[in-house]
């Protein structure tokens, strides 16, 4: 569904992605992990053309994202819902108006139908009855949930999550992880998650990929990821105290 072909990206002299190639299948939850500055968010931003590669191509279905323009790009972006790291809610709009925004601006859906859809999506992320609140009145976790409700309100086929649990306490982080997993099962969407939290990655991911120094050093199912003998992967697992899938399951049971 999404394909990176030899994607290279530089910021000044620093090579952030160096000929990265991978493919994300329809319906899977593909998690990209790595240290800060490894190029995780940069990869995500290439999928929605917030960044363009120096060389290589990014494909969504049969469309090349980095060569599309105008209406074609708009059509490609309609496949996506994005949860930004900061949730990116418009501060002067209420929760309901934020979630309504893509429907009000991009469709001719009647107002009462929009309100029903928004209430449904807010309920899906566990936020009934907060429609009138302003983003500034919400906690970090609630803001992320509102951002997620806005991302799924247009029924996208692909949802991108940029560090969905960063800045949240462990309990709320696990709730967000369970929500991502739940949404994939209920809505059948393809999810791409960028995170440095390996517990999250191994719990929600159907495949986990590790970026290091601009290269994808490992990509596999969570069980194989834990068994990997690649030194960078081993260091990353050890740094977060993970030896087996049992450690991950234990963290989510607590």
């Amino acid at each position, binding site marked *: 569904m999404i394909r990176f072909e030899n994607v290279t990206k530089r910021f*000044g002299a620093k090579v952030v992605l160096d000929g990265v190639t991978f493919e994300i299948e329809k319906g899977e939850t593909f998690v990209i992990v790595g240290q800060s500055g490894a190029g995780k968010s940069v990869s995500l931003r290439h999928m929605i053309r*917030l960044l363009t590669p120096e060389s290589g191509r990014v494909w969504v279905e049969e469309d090349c994202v980095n060569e599309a323009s105008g209406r074609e790009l708009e059509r490609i*972006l309609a496949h996506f819902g*994005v949860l*930004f790291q900061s949730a990116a809610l418009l501060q002067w709009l209420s929760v309901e108006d934020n979630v309504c*925004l893509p429907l009000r601006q991009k469709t001719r859906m009647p107002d009462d139908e929009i309100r029903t859809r928004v209430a449904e999506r807010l309920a899906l992320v566990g936020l009934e009855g907060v429609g009138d609140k302003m983003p500034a009145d919400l906690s970090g976790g609630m803001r992320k949930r509102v951002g997620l409700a806005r991302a799924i309100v247009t029924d996208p086929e692909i949802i991108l999550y940029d560090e969905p649990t960063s800045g949240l306490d462990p309990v709320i982080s696990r709730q967000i992880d369970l929500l991502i997993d739940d949404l994939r099962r209920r809505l059948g969407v393809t999810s791409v998650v960028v995170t440095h939290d390996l517990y999250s990655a191994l719990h929600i991911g159907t495949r986990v990929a590790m970026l290091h120094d601009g290269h994808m050093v490992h990509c596999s199912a969570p069980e194989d990821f834990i068994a990997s003998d690649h030194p960078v992967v081993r260091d990353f697992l050890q740094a977060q105290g993970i030896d087996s899938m049992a450690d991950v399951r234990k963290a989510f049971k607590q």
Partner: protein
Amino acid sequence: MITREPQIFDPPPQPFAAMGRAVIQTCQGTGRGLMMLLGAAAQVPFLFSRRNRDDVMRQLYLVGIKSLGVVTVVALFTGMILALQTGLALRRWGQESSIGMLVTISMLREMGPFMTGLVIAASVGSAIAAQMGTMAVSEEIAALDVMGISPLRYLMMPRLVALAFMMPLLTVYTNLLGILGGAMVGATQLGITLEAYFDNAFRYAENKDLYVGLFKAFLFGLIIVTVATYQGVTATEGAVGVGRATRRTVIISFLLILVVGYFVTRMFYQ
């Protein structure tokens, strides 16, 4: 999409190269700002659509009504200072009765649009830049782009309409209050009756003075909204970047108001 990836360059090898790069970046910025203005202007036909009318009304209120307080004080005192300075100077030759004409023509041609432009650039322009800048650094503008909502239509067009429409109206208000302020000083400090002041004022002022002043105000509105939006959406580096965008908006708007004001005067009066 108006979201652009950050441009990162290696440090220039010599000062001459740095100057060249600055010139190129200024030209690129000017071009992109003008393209944004044209892009937002192309959205003006959607002014009254269900999706935009509330935002347009909100911006008209913010630019027009919320600025009235500061515009009132500035306009009144501009007229009073003009009347006092010129009146005291002309009194030496017994010509203080001409202040009506001097204040009115100065206000209509130059001081009305100029002072309104400065006040709106400092208050509304800086507010637009700060808001857009904050939205840019917190990825809200990128989110709009990704949702397929044009920031030019959703954010810039309502502000463009508000400034293009309200700047001339506020200038009319500034002119009236400035002329009134001059009359008050004339009556209380220089011994000129209101009747003599207004008789002198309207005997020499022409319709052209008013129209040229309003045309300038319209142009100043376009300048302020373009500079503020461009500086805002290109802000990077968090709070520091937002502060820089706001400062640049005020400085560039002031300079452009002065320069454009001069050339419009030259075009119509030479």
